[in-house]
């Protein structure tokens, strides 16, 4: 395990789940819960004769950023593509549940709590969604995580980080969309059906998954930032994510309502307007939408240096 200071300078894209979990909170504050020594691993994989991991590919724990208690969930893409099964799902569910219970207890005991003293949940996604080996158990885990997000609503902000190799796809794409805020790097990818699956189902003509520029301008951080699916776009180091997370962590929970994608009649209205716009525009490429958002340089927007991009890009308003 690298030292905390070294993790800060590491590329978030290349950091494993545990380094991200440790590096996102203040130095020396991370305590892992249900860690590898507890050996909670998938019974289904064992039955199938597949290799297991003693943390089931998900690191969970608690730490602090300044005065804010931070409940951390961090997924590991190198274990079966970051897929979520029964045990990993339960670890996610119980981390959020713990945060909500902690919040209730804290508020009951301390009436003068400031916003920055209230807990947040951070999920560092790196997943393709359901672990197919575990079918229904994996699906159920997704539903239970969604349920916990509802319970955390208006109490504990849930903040998503996406900037790891696998990206965030499948059922976990839905989960990320249902959280309060999304921080991405330009290397992060967010979507429902993964590029390879689209190609397999609809053909190479429809979507060439080997064309990485196409993949990124359809699912990548820059595109998601323009579309409003991503709230904050950051550089690629662990420290960059940590800094953005720190800025959000101290905000009052009401502030997060403005960042959400779903969950109110107004937001439903907004989503419907987006659907109507798509039907009207019939875009052939993400660049058409960037141009529609008012970017005259849509054709070269994805190759602009990062800082210039963030400074000048126009985001889609509906």
């Amino acid at each position, binding site marked *: 395990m690298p030292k905390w200071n070294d993790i800060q300078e590491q590329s978030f*894209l290349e950091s494993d789940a545990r380094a991200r979990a440790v590096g996102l909170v203040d130095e020396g504050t991370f305590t892992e819960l249900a860690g590898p020594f507890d050996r909670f691993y998938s019974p289904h994989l064992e039955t199938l004769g597949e290799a297991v991991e003693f943390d089931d590919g998900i690191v969970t724990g608690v730490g602090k950023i300044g005065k804010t208690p931070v409940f951390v969930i961090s997924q590991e893409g190198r274990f079966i593509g970051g897929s979520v099964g029964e045990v990993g799902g339960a670890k996610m569910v119980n981390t959020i549940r713990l945060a909500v219970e902690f919040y209730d207890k804290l508020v009951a005991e301390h009436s003068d709590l400031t916003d920055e003293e209230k807990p947040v949940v951070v999920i560092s996604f790196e997943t393709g969604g359901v672990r197919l080996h575990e079918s229904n158990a994996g699906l159920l885990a997704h539903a239970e995580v969604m349920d916990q997000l509802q319970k955390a609503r208006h109490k504990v902000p849930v903040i998503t980080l996406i900037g790891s*190799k696998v990206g965030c796809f499948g059922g976990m794409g839905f989960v990320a969309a249902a959280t309060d805020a999304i921080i991405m790097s330009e*290397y992060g990818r967010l979507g429902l059906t993964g590029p390879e699956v689209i190609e397999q189902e609809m053909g190479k003509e429809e979507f060439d998954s080997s064309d990485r*520029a*196409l993949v*990124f301008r359809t699912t990548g*951080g820059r595109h998601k930032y323009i579309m409003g699916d991503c709230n904050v776009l950051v550089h690629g180091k662990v420290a960059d994510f940590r800094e953005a997370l720190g800025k959000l962590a101290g905000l009052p929970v009401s502030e997060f309502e403005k960042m959400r994608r779903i969950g109110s009649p107004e937001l439903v209205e907004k989503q419907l307007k987006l659907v109507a716009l798509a039907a009207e525009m019939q875009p052939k490429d993400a660049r058409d939408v960037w141009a529609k958002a008012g970017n005259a340089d849509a054709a070269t927007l*994805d190759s602009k240096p990062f800082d210039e991009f963030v400074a000048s890009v126009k985001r889609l308003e509906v």
Partner: protein
Amino acid sequence: MSTNGTEKKWDRRSADTAERMAAAARFIGPGKQFKPEDTVALLEAVIRPGDRVNIEGNNQKQADFLAESLNKVDKSKIHDLHMVQSAVPLPVHLDLFESGIAKKLDFAFGGPQAGRVAEFIRDGKMELGAIHTYLELFSRYFLDLTPKVSLICAYKADKKGNLYTGFNTEDTPTIVEATKFSQGIVIAQVNEIVDELPRVDIPADWIDAVVQSPKPFFIEPLFTRDPALITDSQILLAMLCLKGIYGEYEVKRLNHGIGFLTSAIELMLPTYGAELGLKGKICTHMALNPHPTMIPAIEDGWVQQIHCFGGELGMEKFVAARPDVFFVGPDGSLRSNRAYSQAAGQYACDMFIGGTLQIDKYGNSSTATANRVAGFGGAPNMGSDAHGRRHSTDAWLKCGAEQPTLDRTLGNMPRGKKLVVQGVETFGEGRAPVFVEELDAWKLAKNANLPLPPVMIYADDLTHIVTEEGIAYLNRAPDIEARMAAIRAVAGYTEIGLKADPAETKRLREQRIVMTPEDLGVDRKRADRSMLAARSIQDLVTWSGGLYNPPARFRNW
């Protein structure tokens, strides 16, 4: 003068060409241009059954429009062609054999079509002449495999028919010279026809007809390796190579094969290489395509000169901006040339390093599998000792002097030896063991009726094997027994490796015939991605100051 009353004719080849070109004259306008829609008819006019025909196409640029047009000719008019060409990577190259337009193939590299080549040979659809190396095939263009008609490709033509092949000149000069100067016919497809060319690579009078193809020719960025995909294990191998071979022999002039290990080495010159104090002592002159992973080492001042076999998509501006390092024309753009670069790789390089799929217990290696006739392109040229070499360098002399048995063949005469290095993880892709009792090449020879198993590098040329277990210095082995023991010692947990005798391995380590990372002072714990000067394609763009423009498929932002 006639000796027996009948006039002997000495210009049958040019007369034949003139007759064919007369038949095609109605399609050809000013500037030797013809229309794309006349291409099939033109080919039917100039090609005859049984002709030797070359379609230009290496593993990079492809005369794809002319290849597709040849596939549309009337089979009753044109059939049984003898194709002589570098590579057959496009499906259409094999379709010609399916339809009977072509019958015989002499080539160097199969690429993605390697499976079909094996199948066609087995089914009798294709008669295989031989699998060559590039230089070997090019040499035969000038002796017994001279093409009658060559279908080539270039970026641009001018209104007279001069061609600009520019960055991707590759095989064109060789093909055209062999064809035209034996009075054959050269037909070119170009991406555009312009008033003035940046420079003339092929003069118009060596060309018979030019067509602007409906689409730009297909080109493959085959030599781009994404640093993001380099593993810690490859980094360990790269550390061993740099310390135990590059540094040990101070190898200045070399070729890198294509692969992630050599990319890792390239990316570790400015980091680990610098730490070892090797700047200026190694890698100053290279025969190499413009690998994007070379950018940091070039920018950091390691390299004095690079000559390129071909171009590499996205590297055009970077290369043009570094004319002190690359060979560029008066117009400022690279001129690659496969034949010259291969010759440099064979004769002027002190070392070849590359990977392979299999190495047998004697040290023969091959990338052939049981059902694919892949060929090896240029690796066997560069991965072989050049016996005609007479100039000396320190690295070459040292590698030769280390051979304990030189006196058995040369008496007291000193002689150098090229370093030929295979760097492999003991288990390769799909966890297949790299070290094997018998190469799959034997099965292929049987399946495809080849006269001998296709070997990429023969054991007597191979001087070093590098694996995660360490380095086998095969040039230091006194006999084949010691050689085989050294191979076993670095073969890890493969069947071959499990036969290693620890006592024997210990002796080999004492004799420095085998050296482990610990023997070499390489710290395994340091083998991680922080060793790489660039860890992503975007880092390479940054190193290049924005001059490198990666193809879409390599973008990850």
